[in-house]
């Protein structure tokens, strides 16, 4: 199978039953980008975009195969395919960067809010199964470390890590009140401290996350 055959293969594939798939794939990249931006800018952990990532990872695997197949048997069209490979590799790197960064941001949030996430079913459902396993294992290791290093030698009354004392909880929660930058897709209004604030289409605002959390999750405003 030479390079042109492969191209033809892809051609027929693209023209075949999956005529619309190109549009879908374009959307997927856009969705991944948006998901990444959202996860990075928002103080809480968002639901895991599992289906999207699965689809993209299939694409990633296909491209890796494509690169491997074509870099072994370099033939006459050498210049052409080299350039093509540069483009394919570049795109692969870009997509992988987005995926990695997305996963890392999530892991750092999971590390930070582990005790809180475990205590709420609603929060737990935002984690993928791998992330849940990771969280449990990581927390277990951390607890072992804390116990062996210092907790065991503390008085029993001071050993808990999830106590509420004088109205302050030890468990770290996301800062829902933290301000975020948003862009509005349509006219809207929000309530902050009992004051109604008008949001105009395409306006860019900075306001606390708690006030616009619902609008972010239903997609009426975009976080930046």
């Amino acid at each position, binding site marked *: 199978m030479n390079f042109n055959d492969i*191209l033809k293969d*892809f051609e027929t*594939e*693209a023209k075949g039953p999956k005529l619309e798939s*190109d*549009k879908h*794939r*374009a959307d997927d*990249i856009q969705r991944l*980008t948006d998901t990444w931006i959202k996860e*990075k*800018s928002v*103080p809480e952990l968002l639901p895991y975009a599992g289906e999207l990532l699965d689809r*993209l990872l299939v*694409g*990633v695997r*296909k*491209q890796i195969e*494509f690169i491997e197949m074509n870099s072994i048997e370099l033939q006459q069209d050498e210049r*052409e395919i080299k*350039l*093509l490979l*540069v*483009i*394919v590799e*570049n*795109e*692969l790197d*870009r*997509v992988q960067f987005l995926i990695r960064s997305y996963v*890392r*941001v999530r892991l*750092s*949030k999971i*590390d*930070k809010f*582990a005790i809180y996430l475990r205590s709420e079913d609603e929060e737990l459902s935002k984690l993928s199964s791998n992330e849940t396993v990771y969280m449990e294992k990581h927390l277990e290791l*951390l607890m072992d470390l804390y116990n062996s290093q210092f907790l065991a030698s503390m008085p029993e009354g001071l050993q808990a890590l999830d106590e509420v004392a*004088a*109205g*302050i909880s030890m468990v770290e929660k996301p*800062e829902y*009140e*933290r*301000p*975020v*930058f948003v862009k509005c897709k349509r006219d809207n209004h929000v309530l*902050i*401290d*009992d*004051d109604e*604030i008008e949001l*105009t289409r*395409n*306006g*860019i*605002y*900075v*306001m606390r996350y708690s006030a616009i959390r619902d609008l972010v999750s239903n997609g009426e405003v975009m976080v*930046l």
Partner: protein
Amino acid sequence: MTELPPYHFTTSEINFLAEQESITILPRYTFNGTRLIGPRLPNLKALHRQQVPVWIALILKKQDRCNVVIPDWLSVSFLKQRYDEEVNQPNNFSELPWHWLPIAKMLLEKCSDDFIDATHEVRSTLQDLREIRQLKARKGIKELNEVYLQLDGLSLMEINEIRPFIIESMNQLRILSQSVKGNGQFTGIEEAAEKEDVSGLLDESEVGDYTRDSTRDSIARDTATTDSVARDSIRGSGVRSRKPDTSYGDTRDENDDEDSDVEYKKS
């Protein structure tokens, strides 16, 4: 336990996003497209205009396989017009593409031969535009309050430059005003005391060529005097905001002087 990564993006991450935008190219050779994870690269025909993402355009350009069609907004006349708008409308930012800064920079660096206007003129006009907008954005920081801030017309790169400062300051203002209101008095004050001095944050934001000292001083003063700032009228700034007058409730006189925050903290 662990520190969260910052909520802002690095300059290279913004550049990355800008590279996803599409741009028109004029291929020099015919070239078969290929399937990608995202939208496929269309077949390129010599001298047939084609829209591709900026990152592909830059690869093809580097290999001398295409010319980039410089977007209309990247011309001296267009930018000059925007500059005049900036001057004439001190309260608004003129409309520019969402990624105008990084795209202009990339194209000037990598495709300078595709420009119709002299690149040094484009560069200097861009610089003028950037400076006047930075000035406005900085003036707008005066309007900072704990409720909200409106910044229509800023591009992503410009937002990202002022983001760390604005977010931290707003957060501090909110914590302070909450403790003044009496709900969560203790937590509020402690939280505020734990955090570092906001004025130092401007250094961390990638502000580039800001004339730092003078702005930082005025910003430090401004954040210290939250309510007097909020009472300021718009005064030639590009940022609009409104502070609801009920936010402090009846607990204080509207004409309190600047020191009142401090007194509240001590009590």
